[in-house]
């Protein structure tokens, strides 16, 4: 029998083959499991936020018939009129059987205290309404809102609910007449903070975030890019630039609260800038994002191929022309991506703002860079710590809005990269 001569090396290879493929399969499995786990966590996060927050985009209104009694508007200044009394009168005329003092209080409780401001605005815009009877939808109290959204269980014993049996009966009567409705919660997007959950909105915090980030962007992008270009293209390579480089890398890892302390010491105590304002917040966040932007910009400058630099120099471009005409345009998409990621980072930051007083209760919508303001993540933090049950869904809703902003910023980063990336 002629056995073909076998190669001992091949035998060894074949024997090992199985083990090698097994190792590869194991590794792939690990990777896939990791990705799956990450996706699961992400899904759980989104699900828990959305499921507890989506109701906040709806708000309960109660329809009342208000008689703008001319007797109340004797004063020249219409805003001083007793609007709460008008609402109370309207509720009393709807439920004339309620006479006891305690019961009346419970009845008036159904309407949000914010409703009187709604009437005030109505009269300011249209004084002709005085003496008229108007049918108006006003916002309900947060506990009514919670009840109608099912967050307060009406089967519980009376002492355990914030809405008592009488109030339940009145609400059922109103609902039977079609005088209760749930509509899109416009107030959530147009109002500032409030201690009444039904009057609280994120517009103030959004404006604050906008002003703060505008300061941060307009300072950190030019400074960061200029610093990166200087360090990468012009600075001599010596011990000093090495030290600077190490320090910038370290700064990127410094806990953000440290920047807050720095901002407090430098901008507020030394320069005397106003506390709790977007100027100071923006400056602090600038300090925080600068290292991120510098590092990203340097990396993208480094990735510009040397051949392009040689081509420019070889044709007689000066170093500045080489950088400005060729290197910078090629590095810009990477720089923008780094900047937007830095901005997204800044958008989600609360710790450094705590020190400069931006963690505060602010009702008025900030109108500029020196108005007291707060930012979105701070608003989330403040709401999450409020006792009222209705703030819980507001917290989740605000998180959703913040996430939408973050998604948008990242989408812009991707778009810019795709749009301006030059292939060769």
């Amino acid at each position, binding site marked *: 029998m002629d056995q073909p001569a076998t190669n001992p090396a091949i035998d060894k290879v074949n024997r090992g083959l199985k083990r090698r493929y097994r190792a590869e399969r194991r590794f792939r499995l690990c990777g896939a499991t990791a990705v799956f786990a990450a996706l699961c966590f992400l899904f759980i996060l989104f699900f828990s936020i959305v499921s507890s927050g989506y109701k906040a985009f709806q708000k309960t209104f109660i329809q009342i018939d208000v008689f703008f009694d001319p007797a109340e508007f004797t004063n020249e200044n219409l805003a001083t009129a007793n609007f709460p009394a008008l609402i109370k009168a309207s509720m009393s005329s709807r439920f004339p059987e309620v006479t006891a003092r305690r019961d009346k*209080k419970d009845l008036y409780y159904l309407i949000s*205290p914010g409703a009187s*401001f709604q009437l005030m605005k109505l009269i300011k815009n249209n004084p002709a309404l005085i003496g008229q009877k108007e049918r108006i939808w006003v916002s309900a109290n947060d506990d009514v809102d919670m009840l109608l959204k099912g967050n*307060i*269980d009406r089967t*519980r014993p009376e*002492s*355990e*609910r*914030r809405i008592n049996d009488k109030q339940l009966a009145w609400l059922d009567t109103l609902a039977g007449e079609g005088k209760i409705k749930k509509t899109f919660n416009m107030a959530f997007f147009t109002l500032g903070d*409030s*201690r*009444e959950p039904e009057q609280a909105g994120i517009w103030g915090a959004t404006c604050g975030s906008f002003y703060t980030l*505008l*300061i941060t962007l*307009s*300072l950190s*992008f*030019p400074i960061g890019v200029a610093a990166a270009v200087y360090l990468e293209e012009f600075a001599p390579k010596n011990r000093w630039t090495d030290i600077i480089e190490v320090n910038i890398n370290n700064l990127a890892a410094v806990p953000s609260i440290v920047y807050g302390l720095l901002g407090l010491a430098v901008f*507020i105590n030394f320069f*005397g*800038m*106003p*506390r*709790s*304002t977007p*100027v100071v917040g923006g400056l602090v966040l600038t300090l925080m994002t600068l290292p991120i932007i510098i590092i990203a910009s340097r990396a993208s400058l480094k990735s510009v191929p040397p051949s392009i630099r040689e081509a420019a120099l070889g044709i007689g471009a000066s170093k500045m022309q080489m950088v*400005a005409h060729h290197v*910078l345009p090629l590095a810009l998409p990477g720089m923008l991506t780094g900047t937007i990621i830095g901005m997204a980072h800044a958008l989600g930051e609360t710790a450094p703002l705590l020190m400069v*007083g931006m*963690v*505060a*209760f*602010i*009702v*008025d919508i900030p109108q*500029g*860079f*020196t108005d*007291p303001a707060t930012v979105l993540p701070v608003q989330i933090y*403040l709401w*999450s*710590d*409020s*006792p*009222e*049950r209705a703030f*819980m869904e507001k917290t989740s809703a605000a998180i959703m809005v913040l996430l939408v902003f973050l998604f948008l910023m990242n989408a812009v980063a991707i778009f810019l990269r795709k749009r301006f990336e030059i292939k060769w």
Partner: protein
Amino acid sequence: MKKGILLASALIAGMFAGSSAQAAGRDYISIVGSSTVYPFSTVVAEQFGKTTNFRTPKIESTGTGGGFKLFCSGVGVQYPDITNASRAIKQSEYDSCQSNGVKDIVEIKIGYDGIVFANSKKSAPLKLTRKDIFLALAKNVPDPKGGDKLVPNPYKTWKDIDPALPNEKIEVLGPPPTSGTRDAFVELTMETGAKSFPFIHDMEKKDKNMFKATTQTVREDGVYIEAGENDNLIVQKLEANPHAVGIFGFSFLDQNADMIQGSLIENESPTFENIASGKYPVSRPLFFYVKKAHVDVIPGIKEYLAEFTSDKAWGNEGYLADKGMIPMDKTESEHFAEQAKDLKPLTMKQDK
């Protein structure tokens, strides 16, 4: 690129123009201080901002100590006008105020806050005494075998302390040492509870430091869990763990009555009425302090005080009571309303 630089420089210029305008004056009230008073002062501020032509005050929740530090830094628009406090000003803080030129301080007491011990509705309500709480939470307790000596806390279950209590592991969620609520509950429950032991009671006179260490040190063997400043979190944790007891302000119990129940202390349950009448023993006064030098400089301070001290705000039927603040009785509130109106400065002897 050039446009970007232009825009940036314009912005910087605008910023400095803005901040110099700011330095000239501030047209809103700046309030700092206790996180316990924060939910009440914010309601007043909002009401004040919406019903008057003044801007809504800005309120930062910095904690009582942090509030005094900012408040006492000096006189001027960059310093706060009012600080909230969940305890009275300390001598050291008063002295620091004086040395920084903050001479006249008006103290206004606004009401009370009850500290409740609550657990989930899924288990039975607890009936505790302050002595029980001391024995459950102190690091060192009198030897259960008798004798006037302290041993490391041996109690594992509530039943170990008092046979009438349930046979369940002691597990308490409470605020961290930085919190004013913690200071108050240590002082109001543990200290009082400890004094029921005669030898500890005597210790107060003989060795003050020893007394403080004995009564104020909370055990660190995992029985007392520091749950952070967020009281909502504690409520949620209680809901998830029916055996645990939480410590927080009354307003959180008030808002979550369907999920948690307050433990009875000295046979009194933590209800609005009991705290207001003083029957419930664990309650503390709340204050705010006004810098008199600012009253005529910053617009609206007087009006804010008037709003806060009006009956519709802090009265028995006022909106602060709706938010869970326990009002003062009639004579007390009249006294402090008067004080707010006259801006009568606080007098404390100055340590020299």
